[in-house]
């Protein structure tokens, strides 16, 4: 049995926000694949849970009138991977979604939970960094929309105010339109494993030149990071193998890799360079470019 002292199951978002405002000490639970496992391991003892599972429409994936792709925070990874809009507009996010956990976990684990958990290894995080995603956060008082990059405060820490809920992930049109993308998850196993490194790349190519390149790295620093030096270098340059190699070298700049039992610092840095190279090359290909070496 889980060490839970109470379980709140609001049926509307307004009700959830009101309960959370009055009881900010509650632990929010979405799919439960992080929270319940932590409880099984003995943390969060005696917590009260605020479950968002009975709230309808919080899992919807839709295209807003201005072309923004909106993904409800409660959308499970299987739904994201299979959804037509994701396949059509941001296949790279589908790629990241299906790399997470295993099928039974993906059937219940939500993208919002994945982000709010604050893990640097979150498969959706580096991809949403690369896609310049925004987060819609709501409290009983009001809402704010912040860039993904402002959300991560440190390992396992995110910038949510007391009583604030992540409601949706927004990917504006300029974040995805005309972009080729690729996500590489490097892990010892193909399923049920935590990324040793995650590299997400999206790029826009015109006449075999980089119009735009965005790279997000997971597990390269205490929080997911963007590789701005590499991105700036690429802008306007012709796509050549040498250029891709230089981009990959520059991708190391924001990295603050450290040694852990999963991998040494040196190994992680090697992975960043090699996998950035591969991910950029594949994203270029998918974006209609060519960097044959």
């Amino acid at each position: 049995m889980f060490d839970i002292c109470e379980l709140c199951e609001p049926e509307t978002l307004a009700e959830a926000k009101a309960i959370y405002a009055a009881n900010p000490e509650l632990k929010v639970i979405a799919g439960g694949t992080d929270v319940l496992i932590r409880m099984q391991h003995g943390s969060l003892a005696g917590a009260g849970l605020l479950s968002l599972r009975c709230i309808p429409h919080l899992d919807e994936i839709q295209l807003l009138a201005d072309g923004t792709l909106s993904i409800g925070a409660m959308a499970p990874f299987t739904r994201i991977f299979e959804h037509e809009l994701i396949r059509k507009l941001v296949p790279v996010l589908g790629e990241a979604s299906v790399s997470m956990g295993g099928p039974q976990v993906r059937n219940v684990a939500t993208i919002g939970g994945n982000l709010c958990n604050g893990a640097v290894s979150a498969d959706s995080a580096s991809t949403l960094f690369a896609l310049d995603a925004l987060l819609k956060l709501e409290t009983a008082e009001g809402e704010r929309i912040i860039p993904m990059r402002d959300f991560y405060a440190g390992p396992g820490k995110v910038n949510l105010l007391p009583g604030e809920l992540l409601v949706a992930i927004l990917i504006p049109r300029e974040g995805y339109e005309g972009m080729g993308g690729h996500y590489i998850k490097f892990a010892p196993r193909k399923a049920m494993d935590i990324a040793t490194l995650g590299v997400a790349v999206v790029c826009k190519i015109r006449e075999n030149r980089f119009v735009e390149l965005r790279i997000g790295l997971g597990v390269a620093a205490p929080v997911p990071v963007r590789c701005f030096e590499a991105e700036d270098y690429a802008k306007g340059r012709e796509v050549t193998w040498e250029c891709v190699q230089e981009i990959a070298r520059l991708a190391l700049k924001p990295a603050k890799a450290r040694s852990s039992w999963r991998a040494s610092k040196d190994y992680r840095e090697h992975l960043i360079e090699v996998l950035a190279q591969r991910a950029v090359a594949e994203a270029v290909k998918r974006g209609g470019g060519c960097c044959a070496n």
Partner: protein
Amino acid sequence: MLTKNAAGVKARKRLCMTVNGRAVEIEIDIRESLLDVLRDRLQFTGVKQGCSVGECGACTVLIDGTPMNSCIYLAAWAHGKTITTIEGLAQDGLLTPVQEAFVDEGAIQCGFCTPGVVLSTTAMVDSGKSFTHDEVRRELSGHLCRCTGYQKIVDAAERALREAATAADESPV
């Protein structure tokens, strides 16, 4: 809706769900997992407790037709849902084609992972979709078998999918 658990008093909740085609109404403790309720209260011991943290897939059941790990699913969440455990497949002693495929391929050794794997395969067959070899392996990747390997399990799943596709082709529309 706000289920308070004041000073050691167990917070309880009335749970209505359908398990293996039968309506079940039961009072549960909010601290229980769906696995706890299915095994210990309803005696569906075909649902196996393995790792308890969603890694091994032994506790997999179908919730509204979708495979999920019942060990990390609150029993309270099952309210209004339709649950299928391995006990819900065979009817009047007759195995389902998926179960037959596992027997025919010899895809069972100790049997501990089998209920979960059979249910995940059943979900694939019931989806009516077709799956590539890699997709079959991916859909079964949330199950650990510690006896031998996965070849026969994958063979059995592919056999079940093949036979279901053939049966669908032959059935009059």
